[in-house]
């Protein structure tokens, strides 16, 4: 209720409650109707409205003394026939739209009870329109017509109601307040059983509707600017404007209010108006008119002028006009309170403005638009497409009508293909929630049924991978004018660079760029790019471990696309397919990247990742994009035969971690599973051999292949929380990446195999399967066990035994890190681990407290992992490995 409203009597409340109860019951019963039921009801309603169009128009004119009978009859016909033409084939019950390719279905849910205010200017047409919309959408309506149009509106409601009920609509579906006060309206607007207020009326009614706190459709006031530009078809423009502005004596709020005319055509245009029965006011008449039809106190139009004939308005203002004058034109020199006629005038008075340029014309149109017409309607007459687009850009209007009449154009369906309506949404500029032409869809709650749609998956690897002993000889197959080999000092010293050089086709120009044996920084990258540019390289060969290959990837990126902003490209992302930053596709140079790995761990020769250090800021920058993947990978074990034991272990465990994490990742697929599982098998079999007998060619070969295969798996399925923990821990305490992974590994397997505190959202997973996949790996390793839990425990035990055999410290404590130091570091460790993107593909979403628990578990060491509740206890493993 409004604050100052008088209290309603008990009898009045009972009456209003009765209306709501009746409408509620009708809406409830109506909800059972099918699409066919409502369509069967709507058609005869439309026919009844058409038959009674003239009768209702006459009633409206007689009661309101506003507008033109013939035009009102036409409006009633548009409100029925044109609206029907739009809605007849629309589905408004049950499934209304389907998007099979997106797995989406839209279903209609009626609103229930709608409280509807109708205006004095378009009374019966608005009622007919709203009745058809309500029946089409299975809603009940309580109408509250403007008091000065109650009789014609209630008659329109009666005709619609009787026809609707006769054809199957529920009794009580429409009611009309017998008489009403603002208090009645306020009571109904606030009623809990009214689902929607549809307020077509003056600003007061609209404001009241929006202030009620109920969902509301409210139509804002208009003040339609028209730009009549010099390239326009002037004859058409003048006739259209007269047609529109005189239609029903200008009562449609979308009708033209101020026409801004280019200087070059101004006189010609006014003459054309005059020739067609328009009176052009002189300065004195304009002032007289302004004083008569605009309230000087409020600046708004006088109600007595609304919908009156031009001749009558001229008479009120003391202006002498020729008989049959249909429109008064008042030249104005600006917009605002000093120019009273620059506001909305719902009668046949049109302001005109002479503009010296297109810029000035557009500015005046903006001023008119913002003088009470924001969000409503605007009109442009022009054949200059640029002008039309500029007009559309600068004007804020829900309807921008081009080369056609404003009022009839905005109604839709006559001069254009807009949705037919008698209610114009005016957007936020007009205090409305929509700029749409209000239609059936605004009378529905649209439910969206969204089916699970697994995200598209991918499996991307380098075009060519050459493996086994002497695979480097395949370099002969890659002709090149200018090849740059990027490597590091130790590899040059032991002759590996020479092996590569000798393997290239004899005619190849070969240069060697030696970079430090450490994670590359931006300076090193820049020097490498300089060399590539100097030698105009068409082939880059990266010979080394992960650091060298990563450096070469970034050098290639900057060489081919110098504009690439590495910092921007390193921006975080959740899903590589939806990432904000896109890698450059325009290239100034083209080169082939061949990666030859000299360690058996990172698998950088096949991955789309590259890590570099920003020494100035003391941070690591990780780049990830499939465009970084080398074109060719050479996995030749001759380059790892001399790997030291420590490096063999660290890189080997890194490889195992890649495989285990890719295996249980939320992005795991049958494609990655096959690689992950094969890599796990190879590591368990050959890593101890390679460690204990470094010269064992088969073991070295298989471990080298395992690293590449695991990298193929994690390039496509990503890694998990083990890597996040290891990155943070390794950086904080200066522990090698592989070793850091090894310290966490058994604890992470136990963690992922347990019932998660939080599941990771993953449309590709049909169930939590990490524990089952670990169990499957245990089976493939022949570890035994009968239940999933037993098999997971066997896998953990086997991993621990492997780490023991490789001499990996059993705990973080064994590294000599004191408990106090570790405790002090814990906030930073967990924060950085949580910030690390690696865990985002982990099957279990880690809580920060859980990260801390995992660290402490690793601190205490192997065999002390917290025994967690198994995800599915005592279950036999029968499911497929791949999900």
């Amino acid at each position, binding site marked *: 209720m409004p604050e100052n409203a008088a209290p309603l009597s008990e009898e009045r409340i009972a009456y209003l409650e009765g209306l709501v109860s009746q409408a509620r019951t009708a809406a409830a*019963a109506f*909800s*059972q109707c099918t699409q066919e039921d409502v369509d069967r009801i709507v058609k005869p309603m439309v026919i009844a409205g058409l038959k009674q169009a003239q009768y209702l128009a006459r009633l409206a004119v007689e009661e309101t003394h506003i507008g033109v009978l013939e035009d009102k009859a036409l409006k009633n016909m548009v409100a029925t026939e044109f609206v029907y033409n739009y809605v007849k084939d629309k589905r408004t019950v049950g499934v209304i739209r389907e998007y099979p390719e997106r797995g989406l279905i839209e279903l209609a849910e009626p609103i229930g009870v709608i409280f509807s205010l109708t205006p004095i200017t378009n009374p019966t047409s608005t009622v007919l329109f709203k009745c058809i919309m309500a029946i089409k959408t299975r809603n009940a309506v309580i109408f509250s017509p403007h008091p000065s149009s109650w009789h014609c509106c209630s008659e329109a409601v009666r005709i619609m109601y009787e026809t609707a009920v006769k054809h199957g609509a529920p*009794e009580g579906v429409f009611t009309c307040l017998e008489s009403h006060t603002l208090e009645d309206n306020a009571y109904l607007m606030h009623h809990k059983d009214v689902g929607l207020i549809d307020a077509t009326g003056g600003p007061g009614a609209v404001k009241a509707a929006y202030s009620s706190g109920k969902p509301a459709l409210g139509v804002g006031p208009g003040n339609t600017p028209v730009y009549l530009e010099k390239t326009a078809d002037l004859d058409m423009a003048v006739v259209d404007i007269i047609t529109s502005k005189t239609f029903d004596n200008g009562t449609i709020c979308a009708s033209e209010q101020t026409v801004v005319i280019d200087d070059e055509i101004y006189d010609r245009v006014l003459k054309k108006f005059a020739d067609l029965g328009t009176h052009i006011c002189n300065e004195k008449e304009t002032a007289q008119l302004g004083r008569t039809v605009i309230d000087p106190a409020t600046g708004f139009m006088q109600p007595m002028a609304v919908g009156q004939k031009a001749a009558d308005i001229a008479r009120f203002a003391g202006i002498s006009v020729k008989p049959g004058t249909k429109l008064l034109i008042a030249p104005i020199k600006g917009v605002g309170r000093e120019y009273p006629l620059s506001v909305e005038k719902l009668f046949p008075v049109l302001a005109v403005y002479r503009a010296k340029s297109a810029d000035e014309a557009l500015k005046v149109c903006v001023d008119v638009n913002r003088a009470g017409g924001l969000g409503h309607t605007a009109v442009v007459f022009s054949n200059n497409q640029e002008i039309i687009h500029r007009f559309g850009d600068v004007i804020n209007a829900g309807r921008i009508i081009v080369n056609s009449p404003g009022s009839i154009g905005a109604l839709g369906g006559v001069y254009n293909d807009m949705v037919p309506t008698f209610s114009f949404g005016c957007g936020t500029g007009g205090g409305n929630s929509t700029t749409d032409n209000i239609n059936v869809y605004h009378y529905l709650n649209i439910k969206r049924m969204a089916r699970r749609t697994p995200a598209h998956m991918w499996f991307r690897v380098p075009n060519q991978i050459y493996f086994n002993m002497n695979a480097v000889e395949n370099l002969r197959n890659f002709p090149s004018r200018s090849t740059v080999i990027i490597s590091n000092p130790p590899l040059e010293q032991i002759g590996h660079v020479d092996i590569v050089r000798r393997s290239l086709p004899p005619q190849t120009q070969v240069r060697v760029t030696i970079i430090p044996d450490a994670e590359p920084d931006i300076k090193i990258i820049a020097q490498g790019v300089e060399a590539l540019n100097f030698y105009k390289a068409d082939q880059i060969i990266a010979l080394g471990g992960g650091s060298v290959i990563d450096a070469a990837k970034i050098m290639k990126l900057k060489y081919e696309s110098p504009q690439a902003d590495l910092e921007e490209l390193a921006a975080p992302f959740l899903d590589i397919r939806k990432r904000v930053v896109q890698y450059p596709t325009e290239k100034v140079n083209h080169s082939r990247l061949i990666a030859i790995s000299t360690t058996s761990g990172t698998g950088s020769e096949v991955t789309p990742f590259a890590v570099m250090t920003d020494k100035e800021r003391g941070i690591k920058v990780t780049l990830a994009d499939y465009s970084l993947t080398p074109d060719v990978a050479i996995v030749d074990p001759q380059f790892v035969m001399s790997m030291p034991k420590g490096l063999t272990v660290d890189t080997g465990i890194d490889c195992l971690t890649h495989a285990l994490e890719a295996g249980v990742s939320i992005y795991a697929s049958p494609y990655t599973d096959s690689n992950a599982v094969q890599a796990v098998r190879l590591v368990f079999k050959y890593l101890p051999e390679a460690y204990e007998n470094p010269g064992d060619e088969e073991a070295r070969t298989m471990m080298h292949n395992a690293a590449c295969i695991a990298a193929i798996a994690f390039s496509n399925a990503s890694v998990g929380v083990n890597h996040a923990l290891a990155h943070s821990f390794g950086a904080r305490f200066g522990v090698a990446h592989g070793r850091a992974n090894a310290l966490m590994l058994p604890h992470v397997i136990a963690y992922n195999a347990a019932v998660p505190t939080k599941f990771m959202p993953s449309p590709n997973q049909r169930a939590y399967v990490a524990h089952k996949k670990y169990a499957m790996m245990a089976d493939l390793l022949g570890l035994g066990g009968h239940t999933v839990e037993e098999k997971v425990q066997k896998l953990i035990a086997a991993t621990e035994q492997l780490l023991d055999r490789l001499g990996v410290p059993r705990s973080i404590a064994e590294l000599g890190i004191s408990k106090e130091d570790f405790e002090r570091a814990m906030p930073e460790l967990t924060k950085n681990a949580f910030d690390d993107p690696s865990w985002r593909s982990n099957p279990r979403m880690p809580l920060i407290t859980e990260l801390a628990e995992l660290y402490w578990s690793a601190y205490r060491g192997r065999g002390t992992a917290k025994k967690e509740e198994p995800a599915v206890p005592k279950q036999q493993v029968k499911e497929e490995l791949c999900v």
Partner: protein
Amino acid sequence: MTTTIAPVCFAIDGERVTQALQSVREKLDSGSGELILDFSAVHRIAPGALRALEALARVADENSFKIALRGVNVEIYKVLKLAQLAGRFSFLS
């Protein structure tokens, strides 16, 4: 000694729901008891029937009758919810 009064059961004709409910209402005696209305045959309910149900609920309240609806399908149940009548009855499957 206690006496158990068996609930009175009425099957509602799906084609004549309003009349059936009005007829039940006329049969309600004063005093307490339990009434079961079998809605198994009701597949659609008109505003008149909703009003008849409301009237029945009112009379039941006045006479300390308890009314249970049996076999109400979910579509009719939703209509009763929309009409704010569901809370006035108990439901039996």
